[in-house]
């Protein structure tokens, strides 16, 4: 047991619970619970987006991948950042103008059919749970390693905390936990980066020179192609990364926490700066770990390299910095899982319960208490799944969530906003085909089947050769929406959707926004 790390974990827990207590008094209505009353400023929401987005996979995973595979790890950093141009240019403002609490709201503005809302809510919950499993597995491994508490107990501790934040604090608490985590993560990463740079005499060229000999890969460390040798595999990964963000439900709901499209826009701009600076610093984390911790020690601690950043902190600043960085990683996980629980619970309570079951007539009180029950249900389900998934690679689960989001959500979002002919049938085809093909390709892919025993869940030849499904499933999602629309063009389908002119006016001007 590391006492310093343990006490810092306790400080994080105490502090976040205080925020939750404070937030619990602000939670009065369903709107408070789902979207913090839509009252966040651009700066606050920008920080919260960053805190929601920079997950354990980014902090621990990318640092580890760069440390072990060099340039190829940086593909993640680039994709995760450039994705914000898709969000900013194409999605954030129309989404804010059309929607209210959930991503399904936005689709439902155009299409009245209950099944559309149902599919959109189902996709939201599925993607959020996948993402959550990844974070929980990461959390379990981290706490186990740092505090010596066993995996199951660790996952349950994190699971209980995230449920408490959401149930009592709703979106107010979730947002502030994310904001504080963003500050901590940026501060921790900055400190490490400065020390790494200091070790290289603040010379970037010296750093690159030294990296040529610092790892067993030698020269190859600085060149692409160490981890991703197949061109289509690389393209599939990078496509999923750049298109996934704009379809991730827990990121999309953040745009409902501000009052209008203008604030949504400025929050993306703030988030892009913060996230970009963070991802530049992943180079220092990765290079630093490779140079000052060393390949064999990183692998000895965790085969996937997930412990590279905390180990680097230990090598540079001793036990105190190690404890601090570990606590930051812990806070990172807590903030992200809280956002995910809230997103999935909102989809259940607002979309399934209120709109489908109660036909939009549930009272405020009923909605909030259903959201609380849903939070508990979602948390329990994720915890159980995470316990089964304990041996799966964390980065793989996250890239899966991105690919599913890009395949199942992005086509329907873009068509709803920008395509006049799009209809109910097309929307359903896009969501179903995107979800089924992306998950299906993963199941028959190399992460689940491998001829080498122990490399994947089952032994066998994978039917689909690439590690991520994006290159097939994303185009299929778009094609399905297109074909589904065309085959029903002249049917009675037009009755259950509003005119595209209404969508055009509302998405572009914010006229008649539901607050």
């Amino acid at each position: 047991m590391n006492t310093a790390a343990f006490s810092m974990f306790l400080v994080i827990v105490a502090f976040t619970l205080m925020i939750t207590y404070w937030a619990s008094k602000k939670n009065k209505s369903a709107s408070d619970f789902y979207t913090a009353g839509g009252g966040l400023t651009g700066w606050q929401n920008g920080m919260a987006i960053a805190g929601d987005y920079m997950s354990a996979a980014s902090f621990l995973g990318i640092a580890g991948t760069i440390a072990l595979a060099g340039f190829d790890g940086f593909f993640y950093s680039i994709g995760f950042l450039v994705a914000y141009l898709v969000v900013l240019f194409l999605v954030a403002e129309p989404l804010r103008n059309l929607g209210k609490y959930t991503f399904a709201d936005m689709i439902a503005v155009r299409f009245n059919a209950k099944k559309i809302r149902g599919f959109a809510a189902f996709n939201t919950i599925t993607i959020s749970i996948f993402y959550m499993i990844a974070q929980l597995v990461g959390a379990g491994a981290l706490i186990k390693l740092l505090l010596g508490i066993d995996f199951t107990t660790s996952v349950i501790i994190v699971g209980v905390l995230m449920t408490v934040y959401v149930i009592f604090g709703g979106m107010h608490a979730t947002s502030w936990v994310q904001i504080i985590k963003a500050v901590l993560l940026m501060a921790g990463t900055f400190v490490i980066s400065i020390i790494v740079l200091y070790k290289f005499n603040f010379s970037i060229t010296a750093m690159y020179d030294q990296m040529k000999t610092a790892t067993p890969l030698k020269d190859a460390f600085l060149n692409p192609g160490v981890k991703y040798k197949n061109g289509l595999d690389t393209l599939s990964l990078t496509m999923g990364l750049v298109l996934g963000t704009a379809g991730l439900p827990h990121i999309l709901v953040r745009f409902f926490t501000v009052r209008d499209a203008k604030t949504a826009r400025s929050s993306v701009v703030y988030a892009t700066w913060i996230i970009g600076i963070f991802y530049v610093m992943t180079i220092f984390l990765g290079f630093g770990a490779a140079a000052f911790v060393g390949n064999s020690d990183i692998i000895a601690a965790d085969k996937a390299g997930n412990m590279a950043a905390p180990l680097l902190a230990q090598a540079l600043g001793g036990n105190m910095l190690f404890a601090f960085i570990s606590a930051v990683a812990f806070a990172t996980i807590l903030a992200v899982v809280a956002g995910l629980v809230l997103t999935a619970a909102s989809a259940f309570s607002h979309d399934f319960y209120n709109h489908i079951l109660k036909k939009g007539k549930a009272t405020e009180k009923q909605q909030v208490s259903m959201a609380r029950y849903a939070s508990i249900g979602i948390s329990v389900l994720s915890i159980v799944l995470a316990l089964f998934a304990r041996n799966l690679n964390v980065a793989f689960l996250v890239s899966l969530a991105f690919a599913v989001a890009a395949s199942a959500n992005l086509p329907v979002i873009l068509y709803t906003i920008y395509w006049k002919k799009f209809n109910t049938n097309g929307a359903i085809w896009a969501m179903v085909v995107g979800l089924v093909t992306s998950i299906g390709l993963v199941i028959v892919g190399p992460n689940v089947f491998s001829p080498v025993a122990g490399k994947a869940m089952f032994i066998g030849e994978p039917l689909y050769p690439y590690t991520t499904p994006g290159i097939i499933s994303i185009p299929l999602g778009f094609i399905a929406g297109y074909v589904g629309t065309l085959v029903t063009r002249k049917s009675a389908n037009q009755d259950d959707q509003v005119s595209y002119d209404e969508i055009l006016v509302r998405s572009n001007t914010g006229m008649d926004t539901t607050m």
Partner: protein
Amino acid sequence: MESKPQISKHTQTKRTPEEYSKIVKSAHFQQLLREKKRFIIPFTIFFFCFYFALPILTSYTTFLNKPFYGSITWAWVLAFLQFVMTWAFCMIYYKKASKFDKLSEQVLAEKEGKL
């Protein structure tokens, strides 16, 4: 803090489809759409091309492995330029969007005037 009366259902005054169509046909709205398209389409095409250029070039060619300065290769330069592009496009859009806001305010004002 702010406990404004909360409305749980869609309560906006429902406009008729004809009203929306009329707004769409108005000169200011058409200008707004045109200006937005003129910015967003080329910039979006450019950033996608620039983004995918990196994995395509690193996967199918090796010339990015040539040194740019010291041990820093062109692949890293292109990678950093992705960051520069993202930040730059972000700020350009932010500037540009204030113009969109003005146009959309005009559309809204026109609407209110007629009611």
